[in-house]
């Protein structure tokens, strides 16, 4: 070990392992995590003959598919051996362990992070019985297609249509314009053979807004796109070039009535539409993903600040005092100013992600009991926390990269790639500015409630307190 780094470790005033256990949520969790890492990394899936930086776009995808299949095969084996559920392996699938193995994104992540959770959240019991088993065993590969070429976070503006035909008891899917083509979903281009598709539902000549449908895209044997399905790769991106983001257009594609996910809203055989108790219910999946996102941001920031801090202990530079050796750059206050806030931010966001997750579980428990009044507060919180955590994380990773000078510009530092993964999160799962404006809608309503003397939900109660203070 580098002598400077060793001296840093010798001078540390606390037991780092105690902090590790605290971060993991206890010694047992640390052992579990380390065991999981050991098992997964010992498979050697992450090892590359040639660094993937030197591969073509096509080769990067082919390598990503190869690694992803090996990884899921391993997870399936582990689940059988340990008889555990999916949550044990979320870290491996989408989290920072997964990004270590598939360091430029995985074409199968959406299958686990979006396709399966949507089936669990939006499909009826019968539909789950039919689809979930095949999805879990990966005998079908799914993705989640909502965003379109011309429409993103404002999901009521989506143009893809699903029109019910009572004569054949089918929905007919169409992409009326080029801007209505689905654009971005991971795994969509050449990997998935099924997709949840979000489309405007029309029945009996009336539009009932956006609803989720499960659609087969490719033949399960030949993997050829089905008739009327136009699908392909959207091209090279700033980062995540292993994710196989695709486009998807429909031309009179017919699906059975049972392929509309009907846990919340329904269409009866004669075309009658039955509404869902609350349009907010479709937010379930999105909020789950946002809470997961905040945690992922913690992991990426932890990686970047670990790299930059250790490097700053090794790197020596200039000679402020004559006749003295070059000091470690970590001794410069400007370097500490760049890095230490990153260390603190990891802990801050982890606390908030845990707190938001507990709140999400409490609110969804109330949801099942039909209590909806804290849903808007949770939704507003998940929006602004996702926006602020991803923006702060992107800024933190870029600051860590710059703190490493020229060597931070090397792909082999892993800081540019980490930046690519993090900055993507500022736009997917809700573009940050749109999300902040959605939170603002809730805050303006809260302010008006406070002005009217009504009580406020806990996270905005300060508005009333400050308002009262100002009036007094």
């Amino acid at each position: 070990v580098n002598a400077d780094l060793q001296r840093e470790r010798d001078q540390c005033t606390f037991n780092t392992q105690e902090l590790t256990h605290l971060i993991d949520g206890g010694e047992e969790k640390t052992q579990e995590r380390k065991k999981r890492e050991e098992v997964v990394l010992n498979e050697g899936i992450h090892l590359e003959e040639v660094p993937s930086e030197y591969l073509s776009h096509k080769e990067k995808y082919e390598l990503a598919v190869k690694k992803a299949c090996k990884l899921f095969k391993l997870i399936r084996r582990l689940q059988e051996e340990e008889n555990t559920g999916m949550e044990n392996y979320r870290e491996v699938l989408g989290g920072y362990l997964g990004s270590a193995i598939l360091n430029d994104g995985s074409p199968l992540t959406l299958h686990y992070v979006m396709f399966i959770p949507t089936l669990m959240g939006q499909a009826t019991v019968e539909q789950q019985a039919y689809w979930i088993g095949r999805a879990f065993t990966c005998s079908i590969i799914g993705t989640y297609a909502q965003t379109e070429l011309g429409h993103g976070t404002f999901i009521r503006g989506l143009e893809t249509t699903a029109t019910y035909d009572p004569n054949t008891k089918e929905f007919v899917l169409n992409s009326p314009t080029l801007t209505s083509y689905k654009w971005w979903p991971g795994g969509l281009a050449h990997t998935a053979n099924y997709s949840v598709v979000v489309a405007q539902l029309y029945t009996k000549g009336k539009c009932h807004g956006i609803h989720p449908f499960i659609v087969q895209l490719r033949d399960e044997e030949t993997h050829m796109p089905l008739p009327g399905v136009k699908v392909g790769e959207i091209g090279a991106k700033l980062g995540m070039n292993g994710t196989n983001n695709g486009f998807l257009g429909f031309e009179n594609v017919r699906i059975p009535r049972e392929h509309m996910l009907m846990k919340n809203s329904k269409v009866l055989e004669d075309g009658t539409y039955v509404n869902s108790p609350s349009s907010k219910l479709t937010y379930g999946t999105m909020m789950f993903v946002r809470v997961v996102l905040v945690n992922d941001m913690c992991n990426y920031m932890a990686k970047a600040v670990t790299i930059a801090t250790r490097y700053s202990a090794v790197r020596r530079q200039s000679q402020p005092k004559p006749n003295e050796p070059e000091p470690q750059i970590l001794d410069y206050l400007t370097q500490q100013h760049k890095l230490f806030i990153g260390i603190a931010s990891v802990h801050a966001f982890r606390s908030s992600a845990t707190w938001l997750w507990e709140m999400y579980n409490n609110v969804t428990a109330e949801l099942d009991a039909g209590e909806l009044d804290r849903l808007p507060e949770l939704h507003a919180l998940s929006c602004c926390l996702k926006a602020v955590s991803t923006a702060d994380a992107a800024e933190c990773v870029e600051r860590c990269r710059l703190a490493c000078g020229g060597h931070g510009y090397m792909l082999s530092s892993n800081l540019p790639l980490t930046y690519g993964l993090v900055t993507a999160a500022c736009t997917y799962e809700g573009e940050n500015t749109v999300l902040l404006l959605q939170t603002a809608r809730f805050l303006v309503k809260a302010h008006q409630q406070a002005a009217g003397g009504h009580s406020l939900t806990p996270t905005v109660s300060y508005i009333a307190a400050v308002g009262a203070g100002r009036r007094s």
Partner: protein
Amino acid sequence: PPWENTIEGILTGFQRVAAGKIALCVANIEKRQKNGLPYEDAWNMTSVQLTSASEAHCRAILLQTYYKETEKVSARASPALRPVLLQLVDLYIVYWALQRVGDLLRYTSISERDIEQLQTWYEDLLQKIRPNAVGLVDAFDIRDEILHSTLGAYDGRVYERLMEEALKSPLNAEPVNQSFHQHLKPFMQGKL
């Protein structure tokens, strides 16, 4: 109310900033509506302030949550770890107070003197954390295979790793690349 230059004072200050920004947004929307603008246009004209109010709301919650959670957690920590956790949360809160000092000046009674004290407080915190910086990132316990970085490996052999990775470039497989014969040599000899 008078400004308190303490952690609790800063947390309350951030709530005042968020509440003040939200109130100002509502007032501006109403003013624009009174001047004949429809609500949607009044909203759009105020949207820069609205996103800033949301960010302030989130920041107030982030600081509050981190502070409360750390109080709980550090109570269970060893006497050696506890001050380190509290230094981190103080650093985070004072850092953001300095980052948002304009808002604090506008919505609270913070003074120039208070701000000078905050700056000194922040710089002292950096110095206090300095001896534990490597220990704090070691505690994230991220294996080298996951870090996947020439600069961040546990052993700190930065320069050796940079060179090892450079040699993996396919261009280094041969001392003379074929382009010399196809392009460079004819070019240098004026034959292109």
